[in-house]
Structure formats: C-alpha cells, structure tokens
C-alpha cells in the first residue's frame, strides 16, 4: 500500500526545505523526495549567499523582505548560527547611463519602502576602500540587504523539518504521476509510490521535466554559472558589489566578503551556457578575476581557494513561476527561481504554505501576480 501524505514536495533545495518546514508547522504530514543524496546538494549549496530585497517588482521585493526578516532573526528564533550579516548591496555605476538606470529604479524601490540610497564615489570608497574611482559615477547602497551561509541555512532548515517530523526520501527520483481527473493521485518514483494530498514542484533544474509528468509545459531552462571563494582575510569591505556592465564573454559579475572573511564571487556568462554541466571550465577564473581586479585591484593578493559550477533555472522573463496549476488542481509549482532561490526561499516557503492551506492574503495575491505561471513571459527583469 502506498503511503499517504498531506503534502509531497519534490526537491529538497532552497524552496523545498522552507516549504516543508512551514507546512509541517501546520501539522501536515510532509514527504520530501530528492534525487540527490542529501538536502541542499544541488544548487542550494552553490548559492553565493547574498540576500537582497532591492529588486524591481512587488513580488520579489516582498518575498525577499520576508526572507531577510527570517534570516536576520533565525538565531534568535531557532538558535542556529547561519552566518547572517547585514552587509548591504551596492551597484556601482561606471557610466552615466547605468547611473541613470539605477537611480530610476531607486524611485520604484523607494515607493515600495526599501532603504536604498545613492552614494558619491567618495562615499562609496568608504565602504569599499580602494574601489576604482576612475569613471565611477556613484553607487546604490542598500544597507539592510545582507548575506548568510547557504550551507548553514540549508542544514538548519533540514534539521528543523526533522524535528517537525518531515520525512525524506533521498537518492530517489520522481519518474511520473498517476493522475485521476484533474488531480495527482500518486507520485511515482524509481523506488516507490506515494499518495499525495498536494504536490509542490520545487525541483529546480528539473522543474520542467516534473511539469511534463503532469502534462504541463513550464518554461524553465537552466544555464550554467561558475563561482569561486577565496581564503579568509580580515574584513576590508562591506557590501556585495555588483557590476552590471557587459564585457566580452560576460554580463554582470559580483562579489562580497562573507562572515568568515572569505570573498565569494560569480560571473554571468554571455551568451548564456545552457544545460546542466557541473564541471569547471578553464574560462571562468581568467574571465572573472580580470573583471574583479579591474574595478578592485586590492583583491590581487587574495588567494582563490575553491571554484564550482551550478545553474540558474531561468525563465524567459527572469521571474519565478509560482502558483497553483489550473490544469492539475493539487499541484503547486514553485520553479524557475532564476538563480535567486536561496534569497527567495525562506519567504517563499511561507507563501507556499499559505497557498497549500488556502490562507492567501491580498498582499499574497499581489505577490503571486509577479510570479503568475500563466503570464505572457514577454517582459524582462530589469535589475538582475
């Protein structure tokens, strides 16, 4: 006899883990099915660790504001150290056009109540000492954004879900659904079958495939990004630095110093490298180090300790796809986080629980408009 669960979550990652905790807190019986050998072992652990609410739309801003609240108070509420630091985000502008774009965005961000300001090059040098001044127009600075360890956060969620009796099946792959009418009756894996009340598709890279099992076409296409981390050194700069300019071979790149003192860095290849390939390439370090040292020569002596490769499960417009399926009434998709699953996760977990248990507020409905699975996907996220 297949075992029965109120909620089955596919994917123990940035979205699945928080969703599991929030659902379990409501005394639901929850099963998480994960094809990897443990929690957070796909793209969750590959996240850079930056968390910002300074997006350009109501949905992401609201969810991430909530994520920041959760992470900031995590130690107080749950007792674990997740390495949270309110070190802020900054977008330096090295040409007037970018400065204008950023300042225009700030108006929208202010209208949503975000704390973001414009710093002069001199003031920016105070928080990122030694940053290249030549051509610098100024920078945004949002001091309440921050960072924490994806590794500790993922583990903390996992252990708290265990306390709430969430069950896990690792090394197990969902290979289909048994549908009855407009509902998923049974989740079929390569090892077993499970009867589900509600199913959340939080399968990250594999979200599209899971959608197909339910007859849906979810436009989620992973592309590859490489990242690196250095040795730890004494704290020497404050915020996340995001250079949004394009250069041959790359779009934006970013770096920050985490609470261990290590500098974490990542670059967005241009054109994107589609697919899933976790092997490191010889291109990444030469490309990323050059761009970093161009704007921040002080990093020169910092030793690279490790690099890795992961994926952004992208959607055509850069916004996540979150909501209850119209075709399959007990399936909720929470997919296509576009590389922001880690920062969206905690807030998204709560939102998903409210979807499952029909507790959505007016604000939630407004948030979900940003992530509407049935939108046209014609726009493009302005503030990546």
């Amino acid at each position, binding site marked *: 006899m297949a075992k029965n669960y109120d909620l089955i979550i596919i994917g123990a990652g940035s979205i699945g883990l928080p969703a599991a905790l929030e659902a379990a807190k409501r005394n639901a019986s929850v099963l998480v099915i994960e094809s990897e*050998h*443990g*929690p*957070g*072992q796909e793209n969750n*652990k590959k996240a850079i660790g930056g968390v910002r609410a300074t997006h350009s739309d109501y949905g992401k801003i609201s969810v991430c504001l909530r994520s920041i609240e959760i992470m900031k108070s995590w130690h107080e509420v749950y007792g674990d150290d997740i390495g949270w630091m309110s070190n802020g985000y900054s977008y330096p502008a090295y040409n007037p056009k970018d400065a204008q774009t950023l300042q225009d965005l700030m108006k929208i961000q202010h209208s949503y109540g975000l704390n973001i300001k414009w710093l002069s090059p001199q003031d920016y040098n105070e928080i990122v*000492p*030694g940053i*290249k001044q030549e051509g610098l127009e100024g920078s945004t600075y949002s001091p309440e954004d921050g960072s924490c360890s994806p*590794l*500790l956060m*993922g*583990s903390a969620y996992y252990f708290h879900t265990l306390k709430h009796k969430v069950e896990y099946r690792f090394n197990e792959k969902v290979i289909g659904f048994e549908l009855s009418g407009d509902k998923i009756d049974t989740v079929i894996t390569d090892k077993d079958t499970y009867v589900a009340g509600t199913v959340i598709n939080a399968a990250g890279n594999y979200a599209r495939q899971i959608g197909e099992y339910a007859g849906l076409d979810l436009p989620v296409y992973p592309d590859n990004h490489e990242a690196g981390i*250095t*040795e*730890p*050194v*004494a704290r*020497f700069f404050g915020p996340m630095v995001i250079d949004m300019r394009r*250069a*041959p*071979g790359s779009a934006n790149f970013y770096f920050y110093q985490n609470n261990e*003192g290590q500098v974490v860095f990542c670059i967005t290849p241009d054109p994107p490298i589609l697919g899933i*390939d976790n*092997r*490191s*390439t*010889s*291109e990444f*370090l*030469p*490309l990323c*180090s*050059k*761009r*970093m*040292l*161009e704007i921040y*020569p*002080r*990093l*020169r*002596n*910092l*030793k*690279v*300790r*490790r*690099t*890795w490769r992961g994926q952004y499960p992208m959607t055509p417009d850069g916004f996540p796809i979150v909501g209850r399926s119209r075709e399959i009434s007990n399936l909720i998709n929470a997919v296509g986080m576009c590389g922001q699953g880690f920062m969206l996760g905690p807030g998204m977990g709560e939102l998903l629980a409210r979807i499952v248990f029909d507790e959505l507020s007016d604000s939630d409905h407004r948030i979900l408009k940003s992530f509407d699975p049935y939108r046209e996907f014609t726009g493009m996220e302005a503030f990546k």
Partner: protein
Amino acid sequence: MKELRLKEHPILEVPDYEYISFYFNGEKLPARKDEMISSALIANGINVFGHHHKDGTAQGIFCANGQCAKCTVIANGIAVKSCMTKVQENMMVKSADGLPELPETNDPVEFEPIEELETEVLIIGGGPSGLSAAIQLGSAGIDTLLIDDKHELGGKLVLQTHKFFGSEEDSRAGTRGHEIGKLLAAEVMEMSSVKVWLNSTAIFVFSDKKVGVLKDGVYKLINAKRILNAAGAREKFLRFQGNHLARIYGAGAFQTLVNRDLVKPTERLFIIGGGNVGLIGAYHAIQAGIEVVGLAEAMPSCGGYKVHADKLMRLGVPIYTSHSILSANGGETVESITITEIDRNFKPIEGTEKTFACDTILIAVGLDSLAEFTLEAEAAGIPVYAAGDALEIAEASSAMFNGKIMGLTIARDCGVVSEDIPQEWYQKAEVLKSHPGKVKGYQNHKAEEGVFPIIHCLQEIPCNPCTTVCPTNSIHTEDGSLMAVPLYSGSCIGCGKCVLICPGLAITLVDYRKDVQNPIVTMPYEIMNYPVKVGDELSLVDVEGRFLLKAPVVQVIENKKVHTAMVRVQVPRELAKQVVSFIVQDASVSEALPNAIVAERASDDAMICLCERVSVGQVRELIRSGITDLNQIKAITRAGMGPCGAKTCEVLIKGLLREEGIPVENVVPNTKRPVFVEVPLDKFPNGTRS
C-alpha cells in the same frame, strides 16, 4: 642563538651557503640564500609561525609541500605559505596571527595574455614514476611536457638518503635514492622531445580539456592529448588528543626539512608508524644527529621491511609494537608524547600509558594516492594514465618500474611504438610492489673456517643486489626469485661487496682465517656522524638489537664513494655469527618520564580538520544523527573547507565513519573541485579577452 642546521651529514654533501638577513617579528635573523622561509625560521629555532584565526592555537610547519596553509606567514605584507616561498634579503616576515590583513594596494593590475600550449603527453610529477615514463616517451620521440611543483626533479627520491631495494638491473638497487633521482633526471634532460617545467603546479584539469598550470608564478593553459598522473601521494594523519599542536607533522615533511633543506628541526623525536616511511624517517633522523626517543606501531609487528626495523633497534631505538599515540602534550608546541598499548581491537589498555619527553612527533601512518588529476582528466574526457604512488602506494623501486610500463603504454597508444610491453615487466612490477612476506630462520652455517657472509636478511622482500654484486656468484635467493631470502653457498673471497651494497645493512662477514677462536666480524656502518675509530669499545648487538658483548674496534675501512664504512671487531666464535652491529644511541634517550601524562578530557577533542579546527566530537555527533555524506558534514562543520582542500580530513572522517559502523557504500565522498592549491587572484586574469 645556535643555528639549527646540519653542518655535516654522513651521506649528503653540505655545500657552502651564502647567507643573507631577514626579519621575523622585527628581529634580524640569518638565512641561507634561496632557502624557504619555513626552513630559515626553523633553523633559527622558530617553530610557531602564527596562530589560528578560529581558536588562537599555534600553527607551524605541517606538510612542507605547499599543500596546506598551516605554515602561513606574512612576508613583506602578504600572506604566503612559508614552505613554498623563498626568503629574500631584508624580507620582513611576521607571524600570521588570526586572519591576515590584505595589503592596501590600489594600483591597477597589469593583465598579460595567458599562454596556451599544446603537447602530446603531459606528465604531472617528476618523481620516480614520472621520470621513468618520460624516458620511455622521450626514447620514442613523443612530444612530452613534464611538470613538477618543486625546484628540482626527482620527487621524493631527492629525500631518500638510503640505498634502494629491488634489483640492480630494474631499479638500481643498492644505489641511494637521491642519486637515482639525479641519474633519472639527467637521462630525461637528454631527451629532445621532453620538455621539463620545474616550479610548476598543476591547478586543475578543466572540462574544456585544458590543464591550468602555475609555472614560476605565471598561469598557463596546456592542451594535452594524454595525461600521465604521476603526482604521488599524500601522508595520512591521525586523530589524537593534542594533534593540533605545532611540531607534529608527517615523515615526508621531516625528510624535506632534514634531507633537502639540511635543517635540524628537532632535538628529540618520536615517530608514530612502523611502515617503511616511519622506519626510514627514524634512520634519517639518526643520520642528522637527532635523538629518536622511540617509534610506535599499532600492529603486533612493523609493516615495513624487517631489515629497516632491525637496523633501528640495533642503533638503540626502541620500537613499541601494539602501541598507539594517546596524546601529544604541551602548550603551543609538543613537549611530550603519551603512548599506550592497544588491544586487538585497537582500544587503549588502561594503565599501559607511557610518556616520553620529545619536541617533535612524526606521523607516518601510510599514504593516500593523489587521484584527483586522474578523476579530473576522466571527467574532461582526456585519456589518462597513472603511475607510481598516484596509481598505487608502493616502494619507489616499483614506481620506477610501473612508470616505465606506463610510458611505453602511452607511446603505444600514441601509435608511435608498436612493440608489446614485455610480459616480464608486468611480473616484475608486481613483485616490486610486494609487501614483505614470511620471516625465515637463519641459514645453518656449520662451517667455522675461512671467510663467508652471514645474511641477517630473514624476511622475504623484493630485493637482491647481494646476489648480483658477488664476484664469485656465491649468493642466491632461495628459489632464484627477487622476493625470496638470499642464501650463501660457494666460495667467499671476503671482498665485502655484499656488505656494502645491502640496503638493509643486513650482511656481515665472519673471517676465521687469522684466528678460528676469535674470528673478525665485518659490519656495515653508515652513520659517521657517530664516529667510530680503532680501539673504541662497541656494544655489539644481534640482528634485533639485543646486547651480546662489548668489544673494541680493530679496523675501520671507510668508503667515501658509497658512504658506507666497514667496521671490524674481533669476537669469540660462539657469538661471531650473531653480531650484526652496535648501539649508537644511549639508552637514557629513550627513558620514559616517571609519571605518564594521561589527559582527562575525552579523546573527541582531537581535531579531525586542522584547517578549520573541527573536532572529532562534532563530526561524530553528525554521523550519529544519520549524516554520512562528507559534503553535508562539510556544509555543517566546515571540515574540508579549509586551505588544504580536504586533503587531510577526508581520510580521517572516513575512518571515523568506519569506526561508527557505517558501510563504505553509504558514505558519499567529497565533491572535488578546483583549485588544487590556493592561488592568488592576480595570477588568473587573461589580458586578451576584453
């Protein structure tokens, strides 16, 4: 202050060095020009190089091989690995206390294009196997690039001052390791199709089939059609109380300091591990004038060759079998060691603890193949081969042989050579890597006339130079094989060649020709740093170091070429066949302290990850909560996230998982990622891309 350097060495030549000055924490100190900062510090008696940023405990030399970062110091403002950075005139060196400050350099960085090179074969590692393979590839005229991260070729051969085992024909048995290294290197340098890059560290084999190499501090990319991983092995570490103290390190690191850099890092040494590495390390220590307080081995007998263990015991070094280390005791650095007897399940037996004063502990508990380049090349789809310790842990004699086989195999796969690899090569490679076999009794020598050798080599090992060196062809192994024990039968002329060539110092001559009642015994001796002259009264011992009698030296014949002397004593005929050598280290060196120091704290305080200071207890707790994935253990505790890249802790954590009864198949290994060693960010930018 006394300079802790070797002024003379019984085997190695001590060159005349040029001296320079540098500063450590403001104090002006002498250094040898071109030596590593770490060796300069150790020579000045400085063993604490800094303090860990997590717990403030002392850090010092550990791998002496550029693999970890425990020897980090601040040199002219920049945090560097002191074991890989040469000291410079007036260099300002500071201890690395806590997290280092990044220098405030704001000048723009100049970007140079990254050079890309093509090669048919890339050999990573210029030790015995890499060099042997290069000779094969060079003979076939195949375009080969051999890279090595050290300043000279030879790999660990450079550190081997002892005579090699094996056979003269296949592995130059009887010749000292460092000399073999030079011979092989010279042969490689003659090969016109082989290019050698020294001071060149492989960083990673990337998925786009390029190998990142840092050559003399300049980053290059190599497109290699085939790769031979001959990168060797790394030393295993142990969990025990106090294992984080400064002055605990591997026997390899020790040999680097003593035999390469000619510094004297310790006065009183204790060694854990009775494999060949530990036994030879102890011998090298004695040759450097270092007191070896003792050696402990967990098994009921040493895993290394019996001749090595016997040699040590004869010198007066006690070997404690069925013993393990309980704790290293001291404040910042080692002040003493506590060992304990262990039962058949390796559990300490209470009440058997012994504490010995010592300033340094060597851990020589085995090696682990350096497999990452093989795995990376496989993932990238580049045909890859492995030889030497990177393939399988064995003696250097075996590494030379399988390097030769791999070299020819690659030449065949390149389509350049068509001849088959001789079947006997494979057989010999098998024999050379054999573990020691049975221990036999002495050959029964009834005769008490003339002159003949007594062979004290009683254990089957792959070694036979005594059989090939004898001019009268009077020594043969039992069945003619390399492994079997050598036996004498024939007509000895007393030339002493077998005495001088035996790597185990396990052949003596007994000469009855002058005095049947008091024959003359000729013993090999190669630690002239404990000088012996005619008339000296020696404490003669049997094969395993048991005292037999005292007798004066009647003759010393030095042989400068082979650095082995023949020391002659005249002894009563009843004992003559038993005499093998004499004690050089006073028994007082090995005395235990009157009261054993037994720590009260739980052994789970021992560090399992030295880089991130993660304790055994922290990891054990996770394992007991059901976590058997090393990636997850890393994520939670940071074990494996430090500068050495899980090179030390991975084996320890796997051992702990085993101890906790987790089947191997349930253990998920760490994901290996670039980079092989930490590299400054400014080495990587490519000046051509944007």
